[in-house]
């Protein structure tokens, strides 16, 4: 299981998901209507490290952060 947390404006509690890669997680998240519209605009960090590979593997206990579009300043 991995823990998925949604940052900033995504109004969604953290969830536990069974997934062995980001691609697999993506498929799960796509099924959730409140999350789906965010997916293509979000960046991803695993255990607080930004990742760029959509096929990045996930292992048990990983913490996946979903980062929506930003605007600091």
């Amino acid at each position, binding site marked *: 299981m991995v823990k998925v947390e949604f*940052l*900033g*404006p995504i109004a969604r509690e953290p969830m536990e998901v069974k997934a062995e890669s*980001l*691609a697999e*997680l*993506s*498929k799960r*998240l*796509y099924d959730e209507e409140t999350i789906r519209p965010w*997916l*293509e*605009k*979000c*960046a*991803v*960090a695993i255990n*607080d*490290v*930004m*990742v*760029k*590979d*959509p*096929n990045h593997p996930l292992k048990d206990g990983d913490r996946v*952060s*979903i*980062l*929506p*579009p*930003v*605007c*600091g*300043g």
Partner: protein
Amino acid sequence: MSDMELYEGPLNVKEIFGRWLDEEAESNYGAYIPFVGTIREEEGIEALSFDIYEPILRQWFEAWQAKAAERGAKVKMAHSIGDVPVHTSSYISAVFSPRRRVALELIEEFVEDFKANAPIWKYDVIDGKRIYAADRSTPMEGAGILGIGNEERGI
């Protein structure tokens, strides 16, 4: 002090500016350029409000410290968390450098990269309600990897 400072509410701009000046008073930098961002009164907002994801912000900032050090320069930043009323300040970035050219180039790159990639989310505060500033926000570098996966699988 780590050179990256986060505060609840508006920044004390004078205190921060002056303290940074003092911290580098003997460092022999010739140029000090702070960028101070202040909340504009527009479209009926009473404040802006900010969420920050600190672990990733810290990594972003540390990468910038290294980038600045390679050019003989130093960066500092301060940002607000939560509500910041109009005409008060939420953001200061600064560059110290021996020479003006590097300082002028770095402050521009630093501020622009901050806008594009610092994990900070902005909300308009109107009638006490927080409304995500979706139209002013931009996807971070590397965004879309969850969506691309869907396309590839033909969903």
